[in-house]
């Protein structure tokens, strides 16, 4: 009985997901596509929760539903036409459809075959045997910042490269119109709440789902909300500080790595006794860098006065 009900729940989730994906991809209007895409992000967060991946559910709820939705929506105004039309010929249409169908069948067979093969050595056993020396008790954080710290270092580099490209390519978008007083009122109590939640996610990441990425994206969402409610707030940014914050994560990471190399002969090989503290230090710096990067990506380019550094001082303190 319970199995059948679970199966029903699973099939409804899958059906909803596929329907949303299909309508997102076949929309004739950009606004409709983006709205459905945000709905798909919300649904994906539920699916990660169902598949017992709460870390991912957190990240998807923040990034999929909040940050990337806001990014795409602000980008809509960059394009003069929002009607989606396909310029492919009927023949090309047929070729693409056949190709996709063939690929789908091939991949389905591969997945079916792969899942029916005998279980090899699962990495999860190795991970859980090494958790006690990792300095944290949340396995995902242990993998990200201890066992596979290289990956995370390079990931921060990828984020930095992407935001550098954004900064090189464009000036920031024109300020949008003023917002409603109710929104500004809500922002005043919601933003502190978002910042506190971000700190909570950073702290809790050591022993429960959470961590630097979720916390950083949360902080970025707070900045995006501020930007939406007070469109001219970016004029108050301290641009020197912003530059420092942008590279703080990767700088701290490399510094810790080199320090540990002098002690343990290996880059990023933490001394187990200090591992917990070191991971928290790295995560704090990474949180701030990710938040700064995503905020700049949302603004869409260089803030006013980025090259010269003399920005318009409005008396507002920099928040991030």
């Amino acid at each position, binding site marked *: 009985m319970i199995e059948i009900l679970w199966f029903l729940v699973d*099939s409804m989730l*899958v059906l909803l997901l596929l329907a949303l994906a299909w309508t997102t991809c076949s929309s004739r209007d950009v606004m409709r596509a983006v709205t459905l895409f945000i709905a798909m992000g919300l649904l994906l967060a539920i699916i990660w929760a169902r*598949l017992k991946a709460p870390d991912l559910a957190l990240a998807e709820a923040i990034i999929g539903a909040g940050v990337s939705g806001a990014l795409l929506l602000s*980008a809509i105004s960059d394009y003069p036409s929002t009607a989606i039309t396909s310029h492919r010929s009927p023949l090309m249409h047929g070729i693409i459809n056949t190709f996709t169908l063939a690929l789908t069948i091939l991949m389905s067979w591969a997945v079916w075959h792969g899942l029916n093969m005998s279980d090899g050595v699962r990495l999860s056993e190795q991970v859980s045997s090494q958790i006690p020396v990792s300095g944290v008790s949340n396995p995902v954080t242990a993998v*990200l910042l201890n066992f596979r710290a290289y990956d995370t270092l390079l990931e921060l580099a990828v984020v930095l490269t992407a935001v550098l490209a954004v900064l090189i390519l464009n000036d920031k978008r024109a300020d949008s119109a003023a917002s409603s007083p109710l929104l500004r009122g809500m922002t005043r109590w919601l933003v502190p709440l978002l910042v506190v939640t971000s700190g909570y996610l950073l702290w809790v990441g050591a022993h429960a789902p959470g961590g630097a990425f979720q916390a950083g994206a949360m902080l970025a969402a707070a900045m995006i909300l501020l930007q939406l409610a007070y469109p001219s707030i970016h004029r108050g940014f301290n641009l020197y500080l912003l530059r420092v914050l942008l590279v703080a994560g990767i700088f701290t990471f490399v510094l810790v790595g080199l320090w540990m190399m002098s002690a343990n002969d290996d880059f990023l090989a933490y001394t187990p006794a200090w591992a917990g503290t070191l991971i928290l230090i790295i995560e704090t710096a990474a949180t701030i860098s990710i938040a700064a990067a995503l905020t700049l990506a949302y603004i869409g380019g260089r803030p006013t006065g980025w090259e010269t550094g003399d920005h318009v001082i409005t008396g507002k303190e920099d928040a991030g």
Partner: protein
Amino acid sequence: MISTQLLYSLAGVGLFAIGLRATLLHHLLLPRLLALNVCGAGVFLIFIAVAYAGIEGMADPVPHALVLTGIVVAVSATAMALALGRRLESKESETMKSEAMKDE
């Protein structure tokens, strides 16, 4: 448990296929980016479905960490692609303006 894994993996394959088809069909940047993101979500779903170990069991944390990295990289790549598209759009409108000037 295997049926749950199979169901979600096949859904991931379906998601990937839907995204791929739309990426190939559209020619505007924004819908293409959306479609590519749908593709990525399909890949993530296959990873997490394979990591799943039943209602009672503990899921494998390694794919979770990989996909977490993937989500952050995907959003950065999207931001970069949007910036490229915006630059392209402004260059195009500039060219169109200067051509219109020449015609007059």
